[in-house]
């Protein structure tokens, strides 16, 4: 095992961004990861929300005000989109874990469904927030 060290370093990185042709199911796979990373950040924002809530009305108002302007609002929209996509594609993963849905046509179709669901659900969610007057008055 003395010569094993260079072999270990030469192991490929997953999911092989350098050598794969970009197609629908690859996008579905890499965006699942990207969405997961966005949600990691989103979870930390939730922790801060809880902290500022406990610190009182002034701290809470200052924190939520960060998300009334467009950079903060755009970040929340990205987190919403990521959550819906990761949710849908995670359910796609459950079917794979049960050994179903591996046929190329099925995998392509379910990838497209996940993208469509994520976009539609995000639009509907933010439309509902707007209709609640949540952001209408600044």
């Amino acid at each position, binding site marked *: 095992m003395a010569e094993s060290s260079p072999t270990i370093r030469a192991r490929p990185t997953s999911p092989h961004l350098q050598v794969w042709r970009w197609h629908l199911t690859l996008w579905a796979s890499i965006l699942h990861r990207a969405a997961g990373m966005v949600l990691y950040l989103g979870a930390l924002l939730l*922790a801060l929300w809880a902290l500022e809530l406990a610190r009182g009305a002034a701290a809470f108002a200052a924190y939520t005000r960060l998300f009334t302007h467009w950079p903060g609002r755009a970040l929340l929209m990205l987190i919403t989109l990521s959550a819906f996509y990761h949710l849908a594609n995670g359910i796609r*993963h459950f079917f794979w874990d049960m050994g179903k849905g591996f046929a190329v046509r099925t995998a392509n179709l379910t990838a497209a469904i996940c993208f469509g669901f994520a976009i539609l659900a995000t639009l509907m969610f933010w439309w509902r927030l707007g209709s609640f007057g949540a952001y209408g008055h600044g």
Partner: protein
Amino acid sequence: MGDYRTPLRRARGLGSAKHGVGHFIAQRVSAVALVLLVCWGFSQTPFLVRGGHDFARAWLASPLNATLLILLAGVGFYHGQIGMQVIIEDYVDRGAGRTALLILNAFVWLAAAALTTVSLLLVALGRGAV
């Protein structure tokens, strides 16, 4: 890579950590819980966004809301820690940098879970600042 050794030869000596299956199962089981918790979270978000500080305090005084939000955050951080660990192991070369990131990742989820739980409990018990 000019490497003609068989996959078996390359895998030999690397060994199994003997807990990969547990990791895989923990990721899936936490995901099942999160499907339900996230749907509940999305159903509650519009009220919380509209309501402001007073509403959030009253909302958290409900044991069901406090419990589910603590679970959503805690299971979410745990699931995120597992996923981030996989990403680090996939993309960061072995060495001190990778070890440091894995340790940081382990600290982040526990710290975030503790901070969230304590904060939400304080508010739920009426002990948060007004």
